[in-house]
């Protein structure tokens, strides 16, 4: 007891000294466009802590996560603060290389309730470790071209009611204007498998690691069936995301709707289709489905050199309301911090969306999104399911058969 007290005192003393004078360089590894948000916040940080220099290491999205994987595997070249994207955070949570923020000296338990609830589950491992602090989220809605819908005489509210009415409206749009309903039929599948999950259910596995995919699972059967209906009715443009065709479709309005996170507005406005200002609107997904599209986190590697300052920096990025607003204004990174979502910026109209108060819709969607359990074999399951979906869409494979085959394949790999 006495020994613990002495060492705690010594640590406090050392830290006090360190705070006072020592020059510190803190390495932060991130990916675009999170790096741009960090750059925007650094001036405020430097004003507060002039002795702590932030060294930002930004790499392309996949390169960053591969580099972090290698660094954790070997324990070499680790940054003090590691940014993680939603697609990786589940996997990284199951590994053993990151600090558990539940424990002292972080004791982040109290901070958890300050964030949009579903993000906490995303950063928590199956054995209850909390490995990363959420910074931004991607509340899911769908974007639609108001001009195209008006021309076709389609009421957007009808598209929201059910997936059947969504497809029916798509047929009207295609007939009246020639525009496609959606970029690819796979988008419809991908939304349906991610929305309206029951508590304790992940996309592919439940919280007890049981595989949910199979011919008897209504969610997957429906997702594939509706996706196939879209394809058979010729309503999808058969173009993938992040392709030249995709950007072209946004510019020309050849595709009427797009499911996405809130961040798409920033991308459309800044570089994808700036000339379409005022033509877009957003609304909730069909059948009041709520899903999250993207999100970023900050973690501390267990072997980081400067954990104390790393934690200070992470708190500054995630718990500081002003930082969150700066990131939001800089590149549309939607704050994970609930307090920041109450900022007056959220009730401002969005010019690009024809003055629609879209941020309120996104905030509401974020609040209603349920936590989804992640599993370390999600990426294995995802690859196998995407292949089977193509078999259904392109080769007319029977849906129940495709799901049965996928189940066998995933079970073999999930060991």
């Amino acid at each position: 007891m006495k020994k613990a007290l002495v060492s705690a005192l010594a640590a406090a003393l050392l830290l006090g000294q360190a705070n006072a004078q020592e020059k510190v360089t803190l390495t932060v590894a991130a990916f675009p466009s999170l790096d741009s948000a960090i750059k925007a916040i650094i001036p405020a940080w430097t004003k507060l802590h002039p002795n702590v220099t932030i060294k930002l290491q930004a790499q392309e999205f996949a390169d960053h996560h591969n580099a972090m994987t290698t660094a954790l595997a070997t324990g070499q070249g680790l940054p003090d603060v590691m940014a993680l994207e939603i697609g990786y955070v589940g996997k990284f949570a199951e590994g053993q290389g990151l600090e558990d923020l539940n424990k002292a000296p972080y004791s982040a338990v109290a901070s958890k309730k300050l964030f949009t609830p579903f993000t906490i589950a995303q950063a928590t491992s199956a054995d209850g470790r909390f490995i990363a602090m959420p910074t931004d989220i991607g509340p899911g809605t769908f974007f639609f071209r108001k001009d195209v819908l008006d021309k076709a005489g389609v009421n957007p509210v009808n598209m929201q009611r059910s997936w059947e009415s969504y497809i029916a409206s798509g047929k009207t749009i295609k007939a009246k204007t020639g525009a496609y309903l959606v970029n690819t039929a796979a988008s419809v599948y991908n939304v349906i498998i991610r929305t309206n999950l029951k508590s304790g259910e992940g996309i592919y596995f439940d919280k007890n690691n049981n595989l949910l995919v199979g011919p008897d699972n209504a969610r997957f059967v429906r997702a594939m069936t509706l996706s196939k209906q879209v394809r058979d009715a010729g309503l999808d443009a058969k173009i993938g995301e992040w392709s030249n065709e995709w950007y072209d479709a946004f510019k020309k309005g050849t595709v009427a709707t797009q499911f996405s996170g809130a961040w798409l507005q920033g991308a459309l406005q800044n570089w994808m289709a700036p000339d379409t200002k005022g033509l877009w609107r957003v609304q909730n997904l069909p059948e009041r489905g709520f899903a999250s599209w993207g999100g970023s986190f900050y973690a501390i590697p267990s072997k980081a050199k400067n954990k104390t300052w790393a934690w200070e920096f992470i708190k500054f990025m995630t718990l500081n309301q002003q930082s969150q607003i700066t990131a939001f204004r800089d590149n549309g990174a939607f704050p994970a911090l609930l307090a920041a979502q109450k900022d007056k910026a959220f009730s401002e109209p969005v010019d690009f969306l024809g003055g629609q108060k879209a941020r309120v819709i996104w905030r509401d969607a974020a609040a209603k999104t349920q936590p989804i359990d992640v599993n370390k074999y999600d990426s294995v399951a995802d690859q196998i399911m995407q292949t089977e979906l193509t078999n259904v869409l392109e080769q007319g494979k029977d849906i129940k058969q495709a799901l049965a085959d996928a189940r066998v394949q995933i079970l073999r790999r999930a060991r």
Partner: protein
Amino acid sequence: MSYRAPLARPAESRRWSYTRFQQRLAPYVFTSPFFILFAIFGLFPLLFSLFLAFHLWNPLDGLGNWKFVGFENFQLALDARDQFWVALKHTVWIGLLAGVPQHLVALPLAFVIHQFLRRWQGAISTVLFLPYITSAVAITIVFGMLYSERLGLLNYVLGLVGLDPVRWLAQPELVPYSVATVVFWRYVGWNVILYLSGLQAISEDVYEAATVDGASAWQKFRFITLPLLRPMMFYAFTLTIVGNMQLFEEPFILTGQGGGSGGAALTSAMHIFNTGFRDLDMGYASAMSWLLFLAIFVLSMVNNYLFSRDGGRS
């Protein structure tokens, strides 16, 4: 005097001398960079991957946190239902689509250049060699634009003739052809250069003798060039087999990590990469690497056997 020498020698050998260093040690010192680099970047990864092939390891757990599983990784991959076979099938199919035409075009082309266009051989070789030394990423991005369904040049030309646009990189049956075309385009010049250098090694006398005997160009090609080029053909075939079985960059950039629509261009190397770095299952990925090595080894041996059997006959 001579009886003294054995006594003097041990004393001398203990003393460091520059001449002695030059003779005994210097060769090792000067060649050591290769061995050191090979040990670090060649031998160690090789042995480490063999070690991993028998373990279950998630790299995020860090070094040391692996679990011995014996042959489980190999059993998993060798199971008839496993994706390993699907990827291997794609690899062999794309390899054949790209590799066979490469040699069918390169060999006659090299012959024509050697026989009739010798004055421009240097210029032609340079042009043919360019794709080989250009970055695969740049080439693939350019081809990706050509293949683009709505904005690509290929479909634009088809449109001029009144044909419907083709989904080069989206229709599963077409994807292997689209990828193979890029690979073919990239390596055909390399093979021409190989064959040209082989042709130059054939003595002119043989051709002159054949001309005197009244042999036609085809006869010269069939009865002189082909047999005498066999060693070079063996070499070129082997390189193509090894290269195509390890195909990664072209399909990866053209179709993305998953191998495009239905995973039609998911090659073995891509599958191994995905398993290791996306699914974080390093043991299974390592086991598949060794199986791929085995497949390449067997194919090379078959190639070797075919050539040596042929050689025995002639």
